[in-house]
């Protein structure tokens, strides 16, 4: 069974926790990405996620296998929402259990960072001014109708101020 999945339903932290619970684990770290009400100066009302699901599950599983090779991990699960989400909805959930805590923190960080960079998921934001746009796409578009910042080739690495979730 794949340890990376997409979901069109609300994500359940307790289900992920149960899933990675293991008698050999002494630590559990989870990351929740939430839909934020602002991004790059825009008021965000809601957003939509879309994915190339077949390739996305494969790439997600590759990321988890890489994490296993790098860190001493007992169990991992990652699930990402698709479809329409509102403010404060959970967009992504990563759960990692390990024998000791240090590896759980590191592996969780590694997985969410790689998922954001590599898994074919797209996010469309809808703003309070009636505008909308595909994050990391519209702002690189020469034909965009609105004035935007210069394209940033690494924009999704700055999670705190670039992405509306996570």
């Amino acid at each position, binding site marked *: 069974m794949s340890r990376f999945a997409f979901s069109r339903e609300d994500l359940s932290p307790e289900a992920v926790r149960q899933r990675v619970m293991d008698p050999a684990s002494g630590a559990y770290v989870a990351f929740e990405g939430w839909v934020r009400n602002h991004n790059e100066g825009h008021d965000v009302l809601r957003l939509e996620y879309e*994915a*190339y699901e077949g390739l996305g599950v*494969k*790439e997600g599983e590759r990321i988890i296998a890489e994490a296993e090779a790098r860190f001493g991990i007992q169990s991992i699960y990652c699930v990402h929402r698709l479809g329409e989400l509102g403010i404060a909805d959970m967009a992504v959930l990563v759960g990692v259990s390990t024998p000791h805590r240090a590896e759980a923190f590191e592996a969780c960080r590694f997985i969410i960072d790689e998922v954001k960079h590599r*898994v074919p*998921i*797209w996010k469309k934001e809808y703003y309070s001014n009636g505008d909308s746009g595909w994050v990391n796409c519209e702002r690189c*578009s020469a034909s965009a109708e609105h004035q935007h910042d210069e394209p940033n080739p690494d924009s999704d690495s700055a999670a705190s101020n670039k992405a509306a979730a996570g």
Partner: protein
Amino acid sequence: MALIKIEYFAILREHVGKSAESLQTEAQTAQELYAELSERYAFPELNHMKVAINEEFGEWNAVLNDGDAIAFIPPVAGG
């Protein structure tokens, strides 16, 4: 000529107005196919595009084979 299935996602899906199509093409590579479709549909200018061939990331200079499924991957934004 090769019969290629093309899948469109996100900004390209909205721009083209469909999520997939099959077409006969003279394009020899994924890059040539992108150029052909970009001209046909007047794709928005997108940086850092990737391509998937038969549900795996591929190279833009990969030679297309009859029956291949191609997807163009705009910049991603998960999380």
